């Protein structure tokens, strides 16, 4: 029972090695020294002496009525295999030199043929990936988030580099927040220059975030699309507001003609999501559309996001092609919950832990509903979500024996 599969042992060690990193990232928390040793089964008092059972069984057999089974009645589990007619489209972000861009690698998301992690009977789609945020101007951030980015907050290119090198971002999102007419009203040309700097600073695929103004975003996206010809940038986002402002067409065409992708954003309403996609199909191939159905913070309506994603994924797998696009979640939105950033009474724990666990759980909850790409900020949340994605993706043949005896653990 104590023998271990050597392969599995290696995995254990890999997982263990995450722990010190995680602690380091949870700054401001009193750290407990790590005891990095593998315990042998024999060291724990786990097993009930087998003699016990026979004695007790004899003591209670007189309660039995003759009718009751004395042996186990065997049964077998054969799962029903549900066949889904639909499949989530595959969308590739970023382009390498050979495919017309300058990225070091590309990332493909989507491809699911069944609900996320529901069983092992269907081939998995591409594993979800993580984008880290960068802002093109100093922004007000919760203290716990600011801690990790304060040195680079005024330098988007340096910030992007740190996200990739230090925190392992698969993708970088540059939020062109300063373009907002109500903030600095930065020009499209200036915004394109910022994007160019980021393209030079890192070689991962990029997401380009606008300011939310349907006219200004269209101007900025068109300019950026032209400048970054062929890079397969994901333009975040196109909306029904743009359709109303009559700017949707120009963005979709710019994305199509200059080799980029669009993120179709709608607010927790599947009919709107379908309508926006239908409008986009007139201009751009479906394989270039990713959906953002809206991520709400835990405690502020996450359940709406959770259910809308479950509904969308199920409908898509059942054959609704208008919803068969990969989906993105801005887990950073978790920080909108006051429970994430506020100082609270001591019984609710330090915000240095509450904040990152809030972002982590926001992401992991939606991971189960089928998210293909997360936009995140806190490094501990990023590390954890990546670890969970990895562990959910492996079949893990060797059960951990100790867990069977959790009742006997002395903690």
């Amino acid at each position: 029972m104590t023998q271990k599969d050597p392969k599995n042992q290696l995995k254990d060690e890999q997982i263990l090695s995450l722990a010190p990193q995680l602690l380091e990232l949870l700054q401001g928390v009193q750290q407990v020294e790590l005891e990095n040793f593998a315990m042998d089964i024999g060291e724990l008092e786990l097993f009930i002496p087998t003699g016990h059972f026979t004695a007790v069984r004899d003591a209670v057999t007189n309660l039995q009525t003759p009718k009751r089974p004395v042996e186990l009645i065997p049964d077998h589990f054969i799962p029903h295999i549900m066949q889904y007619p639909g499949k989530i489209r595959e969308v590739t972000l970023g382009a390498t030199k050979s495919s017309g861009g300058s990225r070091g690698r590309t990332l493909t998301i989507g491809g699911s043929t069944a609900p996320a992690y529901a069983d092992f009977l269907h081939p998995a789609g591409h594993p979800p990936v993580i984008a880290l945020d960068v802002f093109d101007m100093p922004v007000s951030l919760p203290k716990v988030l600011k801690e990790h980015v304060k040195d680079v907050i005024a330098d988007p290119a340096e910030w992007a580099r740190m996200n990739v090198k230090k925190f392992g971002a698969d993708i970088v999102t540059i939020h062109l927040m300063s373009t907002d007419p109500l903030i600095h009203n930065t020009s499209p040309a200036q915004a394109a220059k910022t994007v160019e700097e980021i393209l030079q600073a890192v070689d991962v695929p990029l997401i380009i975030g606008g300011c939310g103004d349907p006219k200004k975003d269209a101007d900025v996206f068109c300019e950026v699309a032209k400048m970054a010809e062929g890079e397969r940038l994901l333009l975040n986002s196109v909306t029904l507001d743009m359709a109303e402002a009559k700017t949707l067409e120009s963005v979709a065409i710019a994305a199509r003609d200059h080799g980029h992708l669009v993120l179709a954003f709608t607010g927790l309403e599947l009919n709107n999501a379908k309508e926006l996609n239908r409008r986009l199909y007139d201009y751009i191939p479906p394989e270039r559309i990713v959906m953002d159905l809206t991520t709400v913070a835990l405690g502020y309506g996450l359940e709406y996001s959770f259910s809308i994603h479950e509904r969308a994924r199920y409908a898509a797998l059942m054959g609704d092609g208008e919803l068969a696009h990969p989906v993105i979640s801005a887990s950073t939105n978790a920080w909108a919950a006051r429970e994430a950033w506020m100082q609270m009474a001591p019984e609710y724990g330090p915000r240095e832990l509450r904040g990152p666990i809030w972002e982590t759980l926001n992401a992991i909850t939606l991971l189960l509903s089928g998210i293909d790409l997360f936009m995140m900020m806190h490094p501990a949340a990023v590390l954890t979500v990546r670890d969970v994605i990895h562990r959910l993706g492996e079949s893990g043949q060797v059960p951990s024996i100790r867990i069977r005896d959790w009742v006997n653990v002395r903690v």
Partner: protein
Amino acid sequence: MNELGSQQENKRKKNIREISPIDVYKLLPKTNCCACRESNCMAFATRVVNGELTIVDCPPLLTDEYRDMLGELTALLTPPVRVVTFGEGEYSIAIGGKYVLHRHEFTYHNPSPIAIDVHDLMPEDELLERVRQIERFSYNYIGRALAPDAIAIRSTSHDPAVFRQTVKKIAGISKYPLILCSFDPAVMEAGLSEIPSRHPLMYAATSENWRSMADLSLKYNAPLTVFAPDDLSLLRTLTKTLIESGVLDLVLDPGTFTENKLSSTISNFSLIRTEACRYNDKLFGFPLLGVPFAVWAGEEISEDVLKWREAITASMLLSRYADLLIMHSIDGWVLLPQLIWRFNLYTDPRKPVSVDGGVKILGNPDRASPVLVTTNYALTYFTVESDIKAANLNCYLVIIDTGGLSVESAVAGRILTAESIATALTEYKVKSFVDHTTLIIPGLAARISGETEEATGWHILVGPKDSSGISKYLHDRWPPEA
């Protein structure tokens, strides 16, 4: 497919979404007696099908005359996941009772209780303090107290006398529902016999001890957990055998593996619930127990990392069908997100959580007091209300009916608009409350301030983005300069 066939039985039973009000109506007295306070039997049937009322809300059905119909209705409306209760009297908890796989298909019932563990080798003062901590933990969330619900007592001594003493101590100071945890029937009986009326949940029957545990379950009328770690065929075998033994109140634990088997844990829970809800499988039609505690039986690493993992495991299991959880951490940062997520997950997805629109008078405002605006999303409203109350402010709060959307969503969705604010001011006669015409709108609605000034004729001030800032805002800015 399955030679034993048990997985295919009962497929003909209608799913809750397939049951029409007519199906229910046919089995009602059809006298339109209105004893249920509905306008007629059809209205009652509709509300039953929507899950808003239950058949026992029809008094005549409970009489002898309609006994057969009650039986048929019960069979029609029985959820594919059995309801199991444990605990005594007003402290008893129902678990399970799920009708659907996804909450959006209907709604989830019986929010998963969170039990916190103690064990029988804890020093007495530590044990008592832990129970006090469990009972004390509470968080006020949109006007409701969220708290853990039960206590799991584990035997690490394997000594019946020691376990009995611990159970006695805890039962003496707490009325919370109890879960008794031991694989040793002698230890289990020592605990059960100490609290014959408390109806605890037993943990657990295994392939080794099932006969004795079945006997104890029947003798003490206590529901029984079945533990078959990562072996769904064994789980079915045990469940089938226990049902044959007459034990019908079962809870299933397919094992919570948090490390390299996390994927199987999620998949096992999903497969079990899918078979129950989609295929009406009887052997899997029981509540599921998730044990985030299991992280403490894994790698020996830093406590904070284990708590972190326990939080993640608990949250995933809540989302993936666990009807009951046993946890170890009582740190606020671990429990708080679970309690909030559980509350959210079990709200009715068919309607937003909302309060009525209107003017709420907070404190003792006079004719010069500030007038603030918020939306009728329950969370938004109660958060604003509790911040205003906590700061002892006197003001009027105008609640705009946004169909239960938060300020941010309502502005984005064009429901909180200059026009809707203007309409509310008129409809609720806000002018009659004060002698001024200054209105404070939420910071997150800043972008509609100009239009609102035009549409209402009121002077608009943009308040803080988070209502925690209202107190300081009013202190600095109220009354406004002329």
